[in-house]
């Protein structure tokens, strides 16, 4: 692979890593707070549909983002109702919400636009346009670093930068604020929080609201930046891949950036069979490339790349002891 091609692939990798990163951080807040969330996928899907529809109807992409966050938080709250308030099975709740999203998105999109469950293509202000970072043009000619800055880092939509910024912000919130301390505590040992007189329920719901916001951004990015509109099942398992990345990242924000970028890179490679053929000297069937991120996810989960310890109270509803 020559440098120019690598730059192209990296550029596309960053683009593809963005929704994974946002979803991964969404899962991080939820799981750090002790709630498993298999429903990232469904929330992204709902958000994608909401943003696609609202952006098309209003012509304003930011309204679409708002709608995406709203739809995603709504689903997050249903998950909270099931797993926090009614102490139900968090895995089943997440799975159910994913099915609900699959059905609901097509139903609504079809009712609104009658285009087979898609939203109409977005144009102009209804879509995010790329932003050039300062000095991108001036930097472009600097060898090695120049193209990296001008072509890989620069020229993406706002949400890509929001996602990148979310990494240090998440780290700061988690390790430097009162909320972060309590959130980590509630995911490790909710009793410690309860006996300190802090509401476990409120903390966990707050975590789920943040999860909702980040999934909303991830879905909105899918429909208004990565692609021009919502299509059925457009998330294609990204919610699950984000969960695998979260495990890979050992529930830590900076690691999450690395893990999701790796998955993004694989997805970018899968889009370029020509590059692979040139690099490896043989053709790899497209379905095998498509399956690559999923296979890597399994390998990650199998712990062949390091064992991770999840938050101790994860997945269990909190019941006050007698």
């Amino acid at each position: 692979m020559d440098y120019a091609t690598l730059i192209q692939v990296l550029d596309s990798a960053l683009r593809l890593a963005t929704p994974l990163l946002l979803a991964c951080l969404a899962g991080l807040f939820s799981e750090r707070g002790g709630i498993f969330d298999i429903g990232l996928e469904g929330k992204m899907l709902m958000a994608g549909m909401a943003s696609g529809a609202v952006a098309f109807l209003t012509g304003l992409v930011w309204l679409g983002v708002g709608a995406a966050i709203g739809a995603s938080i709504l689903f997050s709250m249903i998950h909270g109702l099931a797993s926090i308030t009614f102490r139900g099975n968090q895995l089943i709740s997440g799975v159910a919400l994913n099915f609900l999203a699959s059905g609901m998105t097509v139903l609504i999109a079809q009712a609104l636009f009658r285009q087979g469950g898609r939203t109409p293509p977005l144009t102009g202000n209804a879509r995010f346009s790329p932003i050039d970072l300062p000095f991108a043009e001036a930097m472009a000619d600097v060898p090695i670093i120049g193209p990296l800055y001008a072509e890989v880092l620069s020229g993406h939509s706002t949400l890509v930068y929001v996602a990148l910024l979310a990494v240090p912000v998440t780290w700061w919130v988690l390790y430097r604020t009162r909320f972060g301390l309590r959130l980590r505590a509630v995911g490790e040992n909710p009793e410690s929080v309860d006996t300190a007189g802090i509401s476990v329920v409120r903390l966990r719901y707050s975590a789920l609201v943040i999860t909702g916001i980040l999934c909303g951004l991830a879905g909105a990015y899918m429909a208004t930046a990565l692609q021009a509109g919502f299509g059925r099942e457009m998330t294609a398992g990204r919610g699950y891949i984000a969960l695998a990345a979260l495990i890979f990242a050992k529930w830590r924000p900076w690691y999450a950036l690395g893990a999701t970028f790796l998955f993004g890179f694989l997805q970018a490679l899968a889009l370029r069979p020509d590059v692979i053929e040139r690099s490896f000297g043989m053709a790899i069937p497209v379905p095998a490339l498509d399956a690559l991120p999923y296979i890597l996810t399994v390998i990650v989960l199998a712990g062949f790349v390091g064992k991770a310890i999840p938050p101790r109270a994860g997945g269990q509803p909190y019941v006050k002891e007698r």
Partner: protein
Amino acid sequence: MDKLPAWADIVLVPLISLLLAAVISAIVILAIGQDPWEAVRVMVQGALGSSYGWGYTLYYTTSFIFTGLAVTVAYHASQFNIGGEGQAQIGGLGVALVCLAVPWPHWTLALPAAMVGAALFGAAWAAIPAYLQAKRGSHIVITTIMFNYIASALIVYLLVEVLRPAGQMDPATARFPAGAALPTFKDIPGLNLIFDKKVPANVTFFIAIAACFAVWILLWRTRLGYQIRAYGKSERAAIYAGISPVKVIMIAMLISGGLAGMMAINNVMGEAERLLQNSAEGAGFIGIAVALMGRNHPLGVFLAALLFGFLYQGGAEMGLWTSIPIELRLLLQGLVILFTGALDNMVRMMLVPFFRNRAKEAA
């Protein structure tokens, strides 16, 4: 939390859940500007109003029994198998390979061989996630989901590159030999008096019923079932009793995958008579709803599969004759899983005051 009588927990909770799911679906139908009553009418008419409709309803029921049982067996070993979809697809591959291997003279010979192929391939596809869970603690929910995606990629590859006969355009295997065709309800003496049109429901339906019985025997009458259930309730106690977790997880998941794979004799061998892309058509996922709704008991699974068979066939008719998209089925499915599997405590709480009053009156 107050307790419900056992019968209410088994019977009322799923029924109320279903009612809630139906009400919400009706609201959604209203919201998209359609008439829920019309939807119900079309569904009942289309699924139950004729022997033709029943022929489809029971065809879907057959598939859902297999996938529902698959989830049930895994559930009793405390494993959540979401991979039924992929296992059913790979089971279909097994069926196709068996059916295409020899020019079968008669279906009575082809069927047992195909069943073995389906079960083996389905089990094999469940084996890796099971092994990773048992030995390395990899979360089986996520690995089985990943294996669904990997299964579809694999099937696409095989159909396009390997199994597609020369000269054929669409990605599918060749048609199975006539000797491998299963008798449908129209071909079965006695039943053909009711089913006079060609329907997809076939002899697999009876195998599915036998499977329900076999799973019941397995779980509640055999040593293996005892060990599966004991492990599912408490891993620590199982180790104390000398029950090997690795063995239980592996065996339960292999049986689970085998059952999911067996679904393929219904759709691939009994109906399509060749292997197509996405052959399972979501039946693997419906198994989750069926198992939860059926309270993870084979009898409950049978009844829930019947219900979902109705919803599936009715939903298809609805998609055909009304403007309500067929995806309403997914919505219903999600709601049923949500209410029976995750919000079940809420449903119970709704019922508790009723029983409390009754207890007071009795006292």
